[in-house]
């Protein structure tokens, strides 16, 4: 099993929070470093970025969703 810190395909919430923006759609090509979603948590609009380049496989959230820690938000294939 791959350690979450070395996982360059799956983007999860580092802390519970509210999704305020989703920047990508399923099937879209992304580059490493592209912003995928914005998570409001810890007094900050956290930009969660693509850990690697590829096609977006799944988008599990929409703006307004409350997510728990570790929830899978976007995966890349």
């Amino acid at each position: 099993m791959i350690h979450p810190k070395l996982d360059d395909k799956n983007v999860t919430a580092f802390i519970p929070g509210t999704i305020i923006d989703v920047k990508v759609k399923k099937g879209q090509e992304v580059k490493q470093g592209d912003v995928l979603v914005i998570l409001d948590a810890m007094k900050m609009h956290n930009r969660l970025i693509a850990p690697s380049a590829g096609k977006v496989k799944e988008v599990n959230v929409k703006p307004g969703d409350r997510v728990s820690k570790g929830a899978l938000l976007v995966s890349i294939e």
Partner: protein
Amino acid sequence: MPLKNKIEELKKRKEEVLQGGGEQAVAKQVAMGKLTARERIIALLDEDSFNEYDMFVEHDARDFGMDGKVLHGDGVIIGTGTIFGAPVAIYAQDFTVAGGSLGSMHARKITKIMDYALRMRIPLIGINDSGGARIQEGVNSLAGYGEIFWRNTLSSGIIPQISVILGPCAGGAVYSPALTDFVFVVDKISKMFITGPEVIKSVLGEEISQEDLGGAKVHAQITGNAHFYAESEYECFEQIKKLITYIPWNNTRKARRFEPKEPKVNFNIEDIVPGDPKESYDVRDVIRAIADDSDFFEIQEKWAANIVIGFGRLNGETVGFVANQPLVMAGVLDVDSSDKAARFVRYCNAFNIPLVTLVDLPGYLPGIDQEHAGVIRHGAKLLYAYSEATVPKMTVILRKAYGGGYIAMSSRHLRADFVFAWPSAEIAVMGPEGAANIIFRKEIAEAPDPEAMRRQKVEEYKEKFANPYVAAAKGYIDTVIEPSETRKLLLHALEVSSTKVADRPFKKHGIPPF
């Protein structure tokens, strides 16, 4: 025999040793994508600066068929040389000779060069590439490791100690690097673990490859054991050379002074930090907008990236930067980031490197896993390190400085020498939302429209307390500055603190929350 012939014999003997483990073993080393021990030393040090000692040392093992076996240099090369003119002592384990295994004479060569480095007060570099203890030499191998660890500890904080992992480094061997200041790893070449995949499989039934267990990425991103990660050995050597330029030879000196250079114009300090405290940015750009030539040499870039540490220069002098990184996990302090920053602060203090701390954090990361992972004792390391440090300490509060995070990040109360705040600073006991909810709990609950009342109270709190002026009124910060004045003030602070005296009561040593 005429001297000429004796010189010939010497040359022949040297030639023999230079073969290392012989053609086949060298071919194997090359096939693994690795340089040989001698190639590594030559690539790392200044041209023609390396002088080797103990070339003719032989092992003294007699058991298990070792008697009569020739192991050139006993599998390790030691010597001295220079890097950009700075003297260094170096050893490199030679994997082509008995797998670089550590026997008693091998260990004695290492401890000899360690003793030399300490006596001469020059940096020590150890290149690790070894299968581990030489089993045939039994407890003598263990004794060797113990002697190395003891010297690592004795030298700690006196001379810089650098470990380079260029091959396996397993079992007890890992503890020498762990005791040193900086550990360098190279992708696909470095392997570090206490117990390897085979033992893990036989004891626990878990299967994992060497790479996934203790490869370079694992130590650079998960464990924090490594400080510098490179894709190739040559890139790794460039990193080591660069590091050497930032640090002094020993703890009685200052790092070498360079020609001062203004930051590059493309880093405009006023454009980096967004006005909205909820918007993130890369704090390394702020460092680059402040540092000479916009040069920032980051340490542990991929581990606990919610805090940034590394070296830069101000007016030609090395300083250590510590900065919360809003881009990663909102820049919170947690177990790993506290540990990372605390160790770096202690390094800088030991080696007379002034500290510049840039503050913008929401606080400590809440969570059951953090509490149970010991965020209390790990977080305390940072308080300890800053409190203990007597080098000049300059703090710049960029935006958020709330609660325990405010205190921990080199606050006045931990004896920062200069605390500057930008007008965007918010220095308060906690964030407006949390504070208003507690202070005005009753008013909010009893209001006809609690949500509207809550919002109003949050705004009131923001207005009154989410600024630098309450702290400035108490003298907790020295002055509120425009972002564009930051470098000028830091340069001045450095200038007036070069003769700083910070006497502390004598003690054998403190008890930091390791």
